[in-house]
Structure formats: C-alpha cells, structure tokens
C-alpha cells in the first residue's frame, strides 16, 4: 500500500496491487475501488496498459525518491508519494539484518552511479548513504549496512553497476 498525491488534484490516493492474474494482468485497488489492469507493453521509459477496458499510454520522465513526473495520455502529471525504496534497498542489502560480519556492501539493484558520498577511510554509521544510484529514472540511496570505516570504495561516478556488485567494503 502506498499513498499518492497528484499536483493540482484534490485529495490523496492509496494504491496497491491486490491480485496478480497472470504475467500481464493484475487487480489493483485505488482508494476503495478495484480495477482490472492489463499491461500491453512496458520498458523503462514508459508503459502501455488497459485499465478497466480503457487504454492508457504513460511515459516515465523524471523520478526522485518521492516525486515522479509522468505523461499520461499526453497529459503531464506530477505525482508525490512515499516510496520507501531506499528502505527496501537498505533492507535487502543486509541493513536490517544482523549481517555485521559481512565486509562487502553490495548493490541490490542495477543502476548508474550518480554520486559517491564517501571516500576510503571515512567512518560511517549504519544507515548512512554511501552512494546514490539511478535506476529506472529513479534515484535511490545505497546505505551502509553496518557501522565501520570504509576500507575501499569500489565504484566511481558515472559507472554502471550490476545487481550484486560490491559498492564498498566496510570493516
């Protein structure tokens, strides 16, 4: 469940997937109503789908952690939400577990490095941002999975990282 606000539109929207009917078909719920959604095509730049029998083409333009710029059927729309993406990534990189012994902070998503927040030898606290990745036009912080000092930063600005690549070693 996620909460959304749309610029220039009254009210808030709560939205979630409530059923997966196949690879391309879902039942979603927005506020109290349920809708059928069929994906026709999708790539990182946009999606075409049929929502309750009605076709829509949506382009994903810009994306920060809490804001998304879309073009819905030629209409530009700005969406605000609380994504928790940083949290999801953080959790999956071991941040919420007891993986203190683990040396390597690994990327849980493929993406492009847009900024590196630390240098070799820096002290970091668990949860500090180590670098920011861009993936699917969205910026996501990769956070330290434990307290420690940066032994070595393995990535550079502008580099492409694959899922599982080591971002830094923290000891």
């Amino acid at each position, binding site marked *: 469940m996620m909460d959304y606000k749309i*610029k220039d539109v009254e009210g808030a*929207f709560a939205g979630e997937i409530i059923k997966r009917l196949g690879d391309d078909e879902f039942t*979603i719920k927005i506020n109290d109503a349920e809708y059928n959604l069929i994906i026709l095509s999708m790539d990182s730049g946009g999606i075409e789908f049929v929502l309750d029998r009605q076709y829509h083409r949506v382009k994903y333009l810009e994306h920060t952690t809490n804001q*998304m710029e*879309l073009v819905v059927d030629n209409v530009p*729309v700005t*969406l605000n939400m609380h994504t928790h993406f940083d949290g999801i*990534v953080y959790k*999956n990189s071991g941040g919420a577990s007891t993986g203190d012994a683990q040396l390597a902070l690994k990327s849980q998503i493929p993406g492009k490095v847009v900024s590196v927040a630390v240098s070799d030898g820096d002290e970091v606290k668990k949860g500090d941002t180590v670098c920011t990745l861009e993936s699917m036009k969205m910026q996501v912080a990769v956070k330290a999975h434990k307290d420690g000092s940066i032994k070595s930063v393995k990535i550079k600005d502008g580099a492409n990282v694959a899922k599982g690549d080591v971002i830094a070693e923290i000891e």
Partner: protein
Amino acid sequence: MIEKVLIANRGEIALRVIRTCQALGIQTVAVYSDEDYNSLHVKKATEAYHIGEAAPAKSYLNQEKILEVMLSSGADAVHPGYGFLSENDEFADLCEKNKINFIGPTSASMNLCGDKMECKAAMLKANVPTVPGSPGLVKDVEESEKIANDIGYPVLLKSVYGGGGRGIRLVNNDTELHQAFESVTGESIAAVGKSAIIVEKFLQKTRHIEYQMARDKHGNAVHLFERECSIQRRNQKLIEQTPSPVVDSETRERIGDLVVKASEAVDYTNLGTAEFLRSDDGEFYFIEINARLQVEHPITEMVSGLDLVKLQIDIANGEPLPFKQSDLKMNGYAIECRINAEDTFLDFAPSTGPVPDVTIPAGPSVRCDTYLYPGSTVSPFYDSLMAKLCTWGQTFEESRTRMLTALDDFYIEGVETSIPLYKTILQSKEYKSGQLSTDFLKRYGMIEKLEQDLKDEKSEKSKAAIAAAIIHSEYFKSLVQNRQQNNSNWKNRMS
C-alpha cells in the same frame, strides 16, 4: 516555363512548396543552414545546398549566398515562402536583375505595399476605406484636435517612430489629447531625436478579416474569399477559419470588390492578402497588403479546391487566371490551428529542443503541414511554428469537431505546445458561437479556462497515473528482491 525552383525558406513552408513542385514535375533546390542539415526539406528536394550558419542573417537572409546558389544550381525561379526574404523588395529586385523568376509581386509593387503611408494613400485614392484618421503626419496639436473631432473620439495618437506599444496613446476627449500630444512628442524625441505623429480612430472589439487575392500579369484579378484570423496573441495569429461567421455572401462580394480594386491600386501580381479590421458595427477598414503566400493559405485551398502554390507558379509563368470571379464558389468550412512550440503559461515563450517522438493526426478531411518527424528538433533560431493543423467540414460544426479529434491525436514529445490552449478555445461557447475578436483570449479569460481544463484533465487521468506508478514500483521491488519468483517476464520487458 519554370522548370527548377529554388525555395529560399525552411520548415513546413519549404515542404509545402516542394510537394506541389513534385506533383508538377518541377525540380526543387533546397537551401539549408548549419541548424537544418537534417531537416525534411533538405531530404525531399531534388538538390540541397548549404548556405551558412544557423542565424538567419548568415543563411536564409543572406541574399548574395542565395543568389550564388540560384546561379550555380541553374534554378530559373525562386519561391520565397513567408518570412525571411519574402517581402524584401531588394531581393525581388536582385532576382529580376538576374533574370530569375521571383514567384511573387514585382519589386516595385512590393515596395509600395511595404510603405504603409504610401499604400494607405493609394487605397484612399482607389476608394478603399482605411482606418479613419489624418491622411499623413499632423503638423501640430490643433490639427490633431480638428481631425479627432471630425472622426470622433476615442482616437489613437501614434508616433511613426514608435512600436510595440511605445509612443502610442488612447485619448477620449480634447483635454486628454492635448496632454497626450505633448507626452508622445517628448517620448519620441527622447527615443529617436525627432517626432512625427498621426491620428487614427480607435476601433473597439475588432475582428481581423483578410482576403486572399490573385492577380495575373495581364491584369485579371479575383479574390478567393475571406479568412477570419481574429484569435491572436501578441498580434500573431493562432487560429484561422473560413468563411468568417460574420461575412455573408453580400458582404463577401462587396468587400471582395474592394480587394480587387486594392490589388489594382498597387499593381499587384501573383497571390497576396488584403488585411482588414472589422469593427463591431460591421465596417471594414483596410490595414495592409501581405505581399506573399500566407501561413494560413491551406484553409483557402480547402474551401476553394485550388492548389495556391500551383496558382502562384502559373501566374509567375505569365499564364492568365484560369477562372473568373463568377466561377469561384466556396465549398464548406475550414479551420487552421497553428501548432506552436511555446509555453502558454510563460506568456507564450518559445519552447525548443529535440522531439524524440511525434504522432501526426490523420483522418477524413484532416491536413497537417509540418516539418516534425520522430527525432527532429525545434530550433531556437527560427519561429515557433511546428505544424499547421487544418480540418474541413461540410458544416462549421463538422470542421470544429474534426479539429478537436485531431488535436487530441496530435502527440509531440519534448516541447511545450499550444495544443491544450486550442482545445480549450475550440470547446468554448464563445468560439462555437463565433464571438471572435482580436482580444479573444483576454476578453473571455481563455488562459484561466485552460488552467481549469488542465486541472480537470489531470483529475481525469489520476487513476491511470496512480496505476502506472503502482506498476512501476512493483517492477522496482521485483528488481530489488532476491527471490527470482515470477519476474522473468518483467526482465524481458525492461531490458
């Protein structure tokens, strides 16, 4: 006989001219600046020549360079399009001297049309009514007071050295006139060191109505009906239509006769446009002649069935007009929307850049003249007109609803466009009922209506936006989670 035409222009009008030449079997020579090497007019012409840098002065306005290409390419005629050199009588003269057939009026006639005072004098002589006022400069405040009382207040005092609202005053009585005369004189002397003032009647709630005129080299002249172009911003036309909702057939004929006289008064040849203001009481006042093909010529083509570029070429070839006035009949209704790259909410500031994707509308009686294609660019160096979208209908309502459907179908990625504004205008009750005036946008609060329409549209699209966001984040989660579960499909899609 014209066999090879150099088109001294770019964008949609260059393409427009090329199309007719192709159909007639006439060769075409395109010219292009650094900015336009990948433009459609370069691709469609028989030959293309690079003529210089992006800035118009270094390319499309460079007469010597264009003459050089005319001579080296062996072009026997030049089509100037609109803008750039199209109303430059020196360029027309240069072509005449080099025995190149300039597709337009003679340089002498063009020169006369370009001089507003002389042109007005010629019209008065021919009994074509112009905006009432002083026949020329007024020598002092007393003379201006006399004229103001003759033609009746309110009047405008205008410095001939003014422009863009500077050196111009609206006055309602003798007292205001005396004050204004002094301040306009002062302003003008301060700005350019001299002052020269004319008095003109101030017309309220005017419409811009123009007539397409055609005159051959043998002196045969006709008009090709009117176009109403009242919907404007900053004196630039946005939406045109023909017929005008306020021109009945008696008026069409009466003003049309004046237009023929006007073309004779300046010994005009080829196609041109006589522009009028129509005051709210139904009077027409000549304002000027546009000595070229107009942007909005397609709507006249739609209701007349004529190919105006072909007609231009035929006239330039010395052929007599193939019809008399009585042969010409209007058929149906046509509307043009000028699709500009501009931000309505930033006072129509130009919006430029790459256009990665574009969908051109189509359908019965829809015509779209454009230089856009997926991957094209809107250049900051030239005007903001990207496309001219025209629709025809048997009735006005049919042309209007077809236009709305076509506007809906028009997708231009990457730049702001005037499309949303046009949807608001075409749906307004004022437009539907033909309540047009040159201050239409302000008078009926169209920008505010547009704001509301955009909000409504966003509300309407809320569900789809939320759905797209949900799917996006679902994919994102599947990207992050370690379990491989069902997302092989997603991966294929996102690769």
